[in-house]
């Protein structure tokens, strides 16, 4: 009955809208297919035109294509490199030098920005008026000034304005700061140091095992064991005792003024210092806001319930507030980490040899292989983005609410 009615209705409709074209025009499936085919054609045509134009233009300008340039000699020096590098090496090597420098400044920046961001974010919620006001001023100031301007400020107005090597600012004759950078003593391991490292590793493993055991015992019997404190004591004290017992098998290579500059030790070039300072402070201001809103997102009833259970303020924070706040904090925190990594490319403006500066800058200028180099560089950043968001998604899944 219902079916026949429906058929009548359809037949009726068909007779009103005469013609097959009208019927096809109003069929959603056909409409969407037609539209998608048209879109596909436009997109293919667009990319084909670009491809043709590029090939024509490159032929006309005599630019060779392909990745062959990666194995020819670079012939330019790089001021800072984590892997051995000199002018006789290839363009492929400059890529790795740049990439490692980008990863170095990004990971240092992420570490320090997280640290400062959490301190400032928690400070903003402090009952201490002075601390919360200072934190708010920190956030509102540094969030609203362009990062590039902050990089320039630290580089040109602060670090390059420091005195020269002869009048360095020094601390205990071991740390030096001048307009060529910061110079720190570097550790030189001697015989027996390997054994200390081994003991340290064993102590860390021991601490983890201890923590697991304490957790299990607490779950089973309810008895508390100060696993974290004992663990930290283990990791610090045991290697220290072994280190001293072996007669301190490590010496320090202290930087020394020779000629016009310092030699020996670890040197931090001012470009790295300025970039790191600016990235850290700028991102920390954003992270502080994320941390604050994450903590405020935990309902006040949780705090009240915790204090009704007799938990102390510190314990409440550690066991009740932070685990719940982390769920709100982690997704935006991830995007801040991604932003920091992408922002590290501003290094090119002050000449820190990161991927963009070395590869997309000098290498591109010397070889003229714009398409390949821009594509490789963009691919690297896309990969870093995808890897970080993939790792954070795993963490997010582990932290998410487990409903039973």
């Amino acid at each position, binding site marked *: 009955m219902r079916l026949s009615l429906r058929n009548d209705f359809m037949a009726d409709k068909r007779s009103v809208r005469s013609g097959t074209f009208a019927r096809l025009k109003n069929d959603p499936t056909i409409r969407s297919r037609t539209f998608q085919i048209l879109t596909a054609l436009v997109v293919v045509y667009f990319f084909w035109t*670009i491809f043709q134009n590029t090939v024509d233009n490159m032929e006309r300008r005599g630019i060779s294509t392909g990745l062959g340039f990666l194995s020819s000699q670079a012939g330019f020096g790089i001021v800072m490199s984590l892997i051995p590098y000199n002018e006789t090496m290839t363009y492929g090597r400059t890529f790795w030098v740049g990439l490692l420098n980008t990863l170095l400044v990004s990971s240092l920046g992420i570490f320090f920005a997280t640290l400062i961001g959490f301190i400032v974010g928690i400070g903003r919620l402090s009952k201490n008026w*002075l601390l919360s006001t200072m934190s708010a001023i920190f956030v509102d100031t540094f969030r609203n000034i*362009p990062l590039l301007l902050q990089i320039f400020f630290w580089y*040109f107005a602060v670090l390059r*304005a420091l005195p020269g090597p002869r009048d360095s600012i020094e601390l205990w004759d071991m740390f030096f700061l001048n307009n060529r950078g910061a110079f720190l003593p570097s550790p030189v391991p001697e015989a027996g140091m390997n054994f200390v490292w081994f003991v340290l590793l064993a102590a860390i493993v021991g601490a983890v095992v201890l923590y697991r055991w304490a957790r299990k015992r607490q779950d089973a019997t309810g008895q508390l064991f100060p696993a974290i404190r004992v663990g930290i004591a283990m990791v610090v004290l045991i290697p220290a005792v072994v280190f001293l017992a072996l007669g301190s098998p490590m010496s320090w290579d202290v930087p020394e003024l020779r000629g016009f500059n310092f030699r020996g030790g670890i040197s931090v070039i001012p470009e790295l210092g300025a970039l790191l300072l600016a990235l850290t402070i700028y991102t920390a201001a954003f992270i502080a806001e994320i941390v604050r809103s994450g903590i405020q997102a935990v309902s006040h009833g949780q705090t009240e319930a915790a204090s009704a259970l007799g938990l102390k303020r510190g314990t409440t924070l550690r066991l009740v507030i932070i685990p719940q706040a982390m769920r709100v904090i982690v997704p935006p925190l991830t995007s801040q980490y991604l932003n920091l990594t992408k922002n590290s490319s501003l290094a090119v*403006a002050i000449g820190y040899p990161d991927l963009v500066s070395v590869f997309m800058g000098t290498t591109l200028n010397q070889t003229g292989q714009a398409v390949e180099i821009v594509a490789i560089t963009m691919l690297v950043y896309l990969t870093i983005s995808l890897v970080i968001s993939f790792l954070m998604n795993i963490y997010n899944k582990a932290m998410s609410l487990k409903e039973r």
Partner: protein
Amino acid sequence: MSDSAQAQVIRPPKVDRGVIGWIKQNLFPSWFSGILTVVLGYFIITSLISIIDWGILRANFVGSTAADCSGGGACWVFIGTRMDFFIYGFYPEAEHWRINLVYLVFGLIIVPQFFKAVSSRIKMILGIFGVTIFPIFAFVMIYGSETLGLTHVATSQWGGLTLTLILAYVGIVAAIPIGILLALGRRSDMPLVRALCVVFIEFWRGVPLITILFMASVMLPLFLPDGVTFDRLLRALIGITLFQSAYMAEVIRGGLQAIPKGQYEAAEAMGLGYWRSMGLIILPQALKIVIPGIVNTLISLFKDTTLVLVVGLFDLLRTVQATIVDPAWRNVATEGYVFAAFVFWVFCYGMSRYSQMLEEKLHTGHKR
């Protein structure tokens, strides 16, 4: 207990009220907090003293040459003498009135938006004028037109704060419609359209703006047929617009997702087609929710405009960079950066306060 004792008024303890009480509660609630207050207070006072001493007490404000900066503090004279360059860049001085006129009209559009007395109808008309006729007017005024008797000024002469504002304005006005289309596309039922939009958005969001600007300046000329050339400013604008539209799309998608499914169904039940149901029912609600998000995108766009200096454009920061190396002035880097930072800060902080205000105003639901 006798009656007289009960009648006795017990005064509140003095230490919990008034100034002393406030200090006790907010600065010295516990001994750890108290130590923190003392240490922080010491640093704040010492740094404030040296900042005031440098920036005001020993600073020089009036004058015209480097010799007028004799106080040993900040040399604000430098900022004053270079102000025209910071605002107009290399724009010919005789034509500055044209830019000033654009600023005036822009002010007439923007300022009424902040007043409650102005009816929302006028605000809307001004807003529509601001995104349609105003850009054309501003372009004709700044670029010049032979028919109107305005001399032609090449884009390479544009600069300073004016260029920064042009980049931000064009970026936002162009990015919103593209962003809306991308956001709709990402939520489309058509798999091909959805896939294209996802790839587009994630690609531009995954790479740094600086690589996009490099790409726009070195690769765009290769993409175009022989003989067609793009202005350098236009190339940067294309790069910025593509980059921002991807971010804008994600902001708007958040708004689209927040609209309950019933609204989509109701629109369909009314017999509205896709575009009409989006344009009349969904987008007006979705865009209202995401106005704060759009303003935040605008703030980050405004800060990102400084990046155009890597492709050789003279924005505000670049003009400051170019003048502070002038050997006629002793070291004025700090003054220059402080000035530029202040200008950017005023704009960005103002916009973020405005977005917070809007959020409060548009929050018509329940408040906890």
